[in-house]
């Protein structure tokens, strides 16, 4: 009760909540919130729980809505059967390279545009702003042709580098660098600090929050990335988790459905862990990203 008495923010305040009708409304809204949370969490949870049913219950038609059996060791046996360690390593390789490219190249571009401003930089900046409006998937065919022309298909390099050309990240960096006090930069320049050293000795250490935001964005994006990897990586040995999941669900049918469900779970797990650890930065990132 005391919690409702101290509510001072939002549309409904503690004075309203003294009325029984408003209090009832609050509890109805609380119930609705619980329903919303249920709709958000239940589908993955159901898939997870039902993939851990024993074979007999799993094969039952119609399926049981609330599972009766529970065999958590299936998580490990399926992992081993599907050899998921390999796909995890591949995905991690993809993510690591993508994050480095996303920070280094977009960060440098933002730095030049925001701080060095060489003659004619504005033209490049406008071109970059323009590409913000060009949807990535539209260029798929010519990008693929470019990659083939350099004989980079079946390699992670073009996938990594694709994160180095992200207009949105450039803009995030540029806007953040604009806020750095000019005195600091001028002082360093007078001391004869070359531009590149200025970038990694002074600008980058001051920009940890935005680096975190771009890191989380690019980890999420490259972990979930599907289309370009699917087209570029044709060698089974270099499949990432997402390609494997797509291929499993629609390619070979020999695999049992509970295995497929667990594989989906493996794909969801890393981003969930990421968010639990970096929740603060993530909410911040969503808001910065949404209100560009």
């Amino acid at each position, binding site marked *: 009760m005391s919690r409702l008495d101290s509510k001072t923010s939002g549309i409904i305040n503690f004075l309203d909540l003294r009325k029984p009708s408003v209090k009832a409304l609050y509890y109805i809204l609380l119930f609705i919130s619980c329903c919303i949370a249920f709709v958000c969490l239940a589908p993955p949870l159901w898939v997870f729980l039902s993939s851990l049913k024993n074979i007999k219950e799993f094969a039952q038609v119609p399926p049981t809505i609330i599972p009766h059996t529970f065999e958590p060791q299936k998580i490990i046996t399926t992992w081993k059967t599907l050899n998921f360690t390999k796909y995890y390593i591949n995905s991690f390789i993809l993510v690591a390279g993508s994050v480095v490219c996303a920070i280094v190249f977009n960060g440098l571009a933002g730095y030049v545009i925001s701080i060095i401003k060489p003659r004619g930089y504005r033209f490049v900046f406008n071109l970059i702003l323009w590409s913000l409006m060009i949807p990535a998937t539209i260029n798929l065919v*010519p990008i693929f042709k470019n990659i083939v022309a350099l004989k980079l298909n079946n390699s992670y390099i073009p996938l990594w580098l694709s994160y180095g050309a992200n207009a949105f990240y450039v803009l995030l960096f540029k806007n953040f660098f604009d806020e750095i006090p000019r005195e600091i930069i001028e002082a360093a320049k007078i001391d004869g600090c070359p531009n590149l050293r200025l970038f990694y000795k002074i600008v980058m250490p001051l920009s940890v929050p935005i680096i975190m935001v771009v890191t989380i964005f690019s980890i999420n994006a490259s972990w979930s990335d599907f289309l370009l990897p699917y087209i570029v990586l044709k060698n089974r040995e270099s499949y990432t988790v997402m390609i494997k999941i797509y291929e499993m669900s629609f390619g070979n049918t020999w695999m049992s459905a509970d295995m497929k469900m667990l594989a989906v779970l493996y794909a969801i797990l890393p981003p969930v862990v990421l968010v639990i650890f970096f929740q603060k930065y993530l909410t911040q990132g969503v808001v910065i990203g949404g209100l560009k």
Partner: protein
Amino acid sequence: MNKKMSGKLSNRLSENISGWLILAPSIILFTFYIWEPMIYSLVLSVHETKGFRMERFVGLQNYIDVLKDNVFHQALINTFFYVIWSLIIGFLVPIVVALIINEMVHLNSFFRFSIYFPNMVPGVAALVLWGFLFDPSEGGLLNAIRIKLGLQPSDWLQNPKLTIPLLIFIMTWKAAGSTALIYIARLQGINQELYEAACIDGAGIFRRIVHITLPELYSTARMLLIMQIIFVFQVLYEPLVLTGGGPNNASLSLMLLSYNYAFVDFVAGKSATVSVLVTLILMCLTFIYMKATKENNNV
């Protein structure tokens, strides 16, 4: 004096050179992934192609062929249906969710975590997951529930009338949380004194929402509306993964058509043509978006 001037000049010059050198890698990458492909798409769209190779210049023939194609008409109409359904199903949901969750004093951070949760589920994984739930056989969860309730099992995504709304439902499930977080941030930026003043004037909860909350959300909502339209217009993953554009092209979108031309039929020219047409439509929409955000800045 002269020496000093030339020193300054060369300093400025070296500053320019080092600036461009640092920018060079990014320029190369942007050229490789965005600018050159854009121009190449244009070139490709006026050529006859064999696989990904250009054979000969054909002018606007690809455009004529594509625009005459019934499948293109279907995809164009479908894409607009995607957008319309996303406005019906998807646009209001985040606003309402944000309004409700922002009022909660109980379990507040749990609710925020849960609404953001679907966002963390990678695209393909989320689609495969919903594929299990919408399984049209009696083995799917939603059909199991229908049977429990004494109803006939439904075809779900295999029903041409339901397929687009259901795909939009899945997209909303996945994306509404992060949009709601944006609205929540906006709601928390509203000056609390406005509500207090309204209280003193005797405004009820409903009137506070209509006269204070909604106007404060208006500019954010207008911007997110255009962004959502542009985003949904490019729908590709959902029909590609879940329905393959079926049943009978009922969920085929323009981007999926472009994908099919390129990577299924191997006619890159036509694929590029569709891409160019989509870009043109999106440019019109972007123009509206620019206007909308410009007005925002003036407010």
